[in-house]
């Protein structure tokens, strides 16, 4: 029933990881452990939110991307950029300058992801108005949230809005438009400049869709560096280039910011950002403690996409800059419709809905309920012995997580440093043995004197 394939954009570089457990402590779904001195990912639990990436002091967690040169596999190359890309740069670097540089880098065209927002807005409002859809309708914009709901809140899967996000609708539009110009499907390469890991995972293994129209993903921090590097070579004319009309509408410009969607929806809606805030809210929603809400905009990052893990600019400044773009756009006549997306309204509208999204609960102890009950009884008994202080010395984030790992055969009770002490006292465990156990979890190096365990210069990247 549940697909076993679960693509992850996050990878842990074993050669760089020092097993410091920072990542393990922040993971909202307890998807990380430390084993053999390295962080290990439980793939069925990871939602690609990137919280681990943010805290890693050694840059051992990397977010995969396609090689930039892959764009040259296609004759016609489109850079699909989120509106927040221009918000990364200081005010003197205009949206036009960024576009010029992207074109110089090898793209034939630059299109903003939110180009399709006006079409989507209408669809969302009629989706919410449809009484047969479970309320509150939860936006499927943020792929980390879609996954969070699939793995941790399976009963809320039916509330997920089964409509494509702007990224997919805009890609469809670009493809259709170019095909009409006589460019064949395999010549078109749409490359998405991503601010987050979850979007990559969503493109590589889409939820509720067959496949993505996007040919590849390029991380936003890479583009940020390329833009800054190319800036010195840019002529004054190119900096002020007005070739690309600012064709996003006001709601398109701020769609990926907090309250960007919720503010456009008719009815009672709420916008929540930050994955921990969302977990807290969904717990209550699942109990039906919260009712009478029509729409929920949930975004895993603080300040939504402006706070994406692959962004470089300060998220609050990014938000301010986008609002300034709205202000500067005020008098533009073509606002929103300098592009030709409305010509494709009927074609696109019929393709906005997506198929069913299935739960993929990660919490079950066993498929078989009777076996799961036995495991739970055992894990409850184990909790009586474990200290309950969640020190993480066993390589699991909490005592509860260790107990559950033990009953699933992934860890042993002797991994707990407190129980080791008790066992040593009663001569059930030799001190040499308990030392070997700790070495197995944290690696041999961890016990050697080393003043440079974490290179201080790497701590703040």
């Amino acid at each position, binding site marked *: 029933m549940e697909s076993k394939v679960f693509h992850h954009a996050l990878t842990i570089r074993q050669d760089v990881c020092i097993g410091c457990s920072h990542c393990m402590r922040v993971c909202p779904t307890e998807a990380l452990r430390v084993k053999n001195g390295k962080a290990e990912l439980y793939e069925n639990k990871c939602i690609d939110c990137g919280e681990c990436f943010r805290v890693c002091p050694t840059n051992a967690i990397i977010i995969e991307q396609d090689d930039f040169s892959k764009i040259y596999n296609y004759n016609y190359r489109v850079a699909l950029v989120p509106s927040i890309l221009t918000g990364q740069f200081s005010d003197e670097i205009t949206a036009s300058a960024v576009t010029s540089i992207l074109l110089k880098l090898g793209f034939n065209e630059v299109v903003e992801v939110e180009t399709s927002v006006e079409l989507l807005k209408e669809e969302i409002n009629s989706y919410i108005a449809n009484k047969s859809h479970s309320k509150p309708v939860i936006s499927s914009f943020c792929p980390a949230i879609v996954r969070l709901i699939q793995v941790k809140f*399976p*009963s809320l*899967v039916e509330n997920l809005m089964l409509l494509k996000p702007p990224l997919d609708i805009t890609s469809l539009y670009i493809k259709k438009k170019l095909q009409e110009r006589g460019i064949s499907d395999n010549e078109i390469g749409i490359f998405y400049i991503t601010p987050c890991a979850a979007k990559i995972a969503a493109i590589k293994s889409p939820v509720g869709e067959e496949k993505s129209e996007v040919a590849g993903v390029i991380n936003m921090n890479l583009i940020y560096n390329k833009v800054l590097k190319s800036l010195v070579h840019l002529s004054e004319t190119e900096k002020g280039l007005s070739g690309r009309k600012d064709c996003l509408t006001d709601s398109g410009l701020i769609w990926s910011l907090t309250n960007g969607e919720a503010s456009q929806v008719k009815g009672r809606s709420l916008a929540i950002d930050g994955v921990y805030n969302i977990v807290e809210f969904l*717990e*209550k929603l*699942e*109990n*039906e*403690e919260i009712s009478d809400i029509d729409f929920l905009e949930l975004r895993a990052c603080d300040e939504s996409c402006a706070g994406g893990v692959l962004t470089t600019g300060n998220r609050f400044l990014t938000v301010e800059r986008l609002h300034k773009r709205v202000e500067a756009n005020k008098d533009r006549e073509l606002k929103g419709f300098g592009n030709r997306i409305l010509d494709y309204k009927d074609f696109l509208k019929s393709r906005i809905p997506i198929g069913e999204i299935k*739960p993929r*609960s990660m*919490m*079950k*102890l*066993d*498929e*078989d*309920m*009777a076996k*799961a*009950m036995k495991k*739970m*009884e055992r894990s409850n008994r184990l909790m009586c012995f474990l200290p309950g202080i969640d020190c993480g010395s066993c390589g699991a984030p909490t005592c509860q997580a260790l107990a*559950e790992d033990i009953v699933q055969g992934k860890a042993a009770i002797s991994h707990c440093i407190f129980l080791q002490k008790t066992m040593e006292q009663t001569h059930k465990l030799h001190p040499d043995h308990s030392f070997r156990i700790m070495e197995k979890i944290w690696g041999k190096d961890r016990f050697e004197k080393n003043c440079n365990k974490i290179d201080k210069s790497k701590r703040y990247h």
Partner: protein
Amino acid sequence: MHFEYKIEGGDFTRAGNASSQVKRTLKQLNVDPKVIKRVVVALYEGEVNIVAHAYHGEIHIDIDTEKIKMTLIDKGPGIPNIEQAMEMGFSTATPEVREMGFGAGMGLPNIKKNSDKFRIESEVGVGTKLFIEVYINQ
């Protein structure tokens, strides 16, 4: 499997704790999300009823592979007219409780709606007992 929770009357800040813990347990036991939802909704309503109306109470949960049995026993004023209490929208909640967003008179009917077996016993001046069962394989 048996679980017990103690509920204090008037402690609205903690209302929902028992249902959240039972929810986690049922997820770990691989119970169908739809069944979990019914259990949690019934239990949460029952929990809030104890907090809003009674002095204190206990919740007993028994889970086997067939069903989830919930027994909610409170010491409180009891219900003088059960038939009336089961009517949608009927409520004896105080204005203060209503101000907090509770006491809309949907609690008991909602519990019944979400359960496969439902029985209520109440004695005025003593307290109320709710017996709720939700079947797992339906």
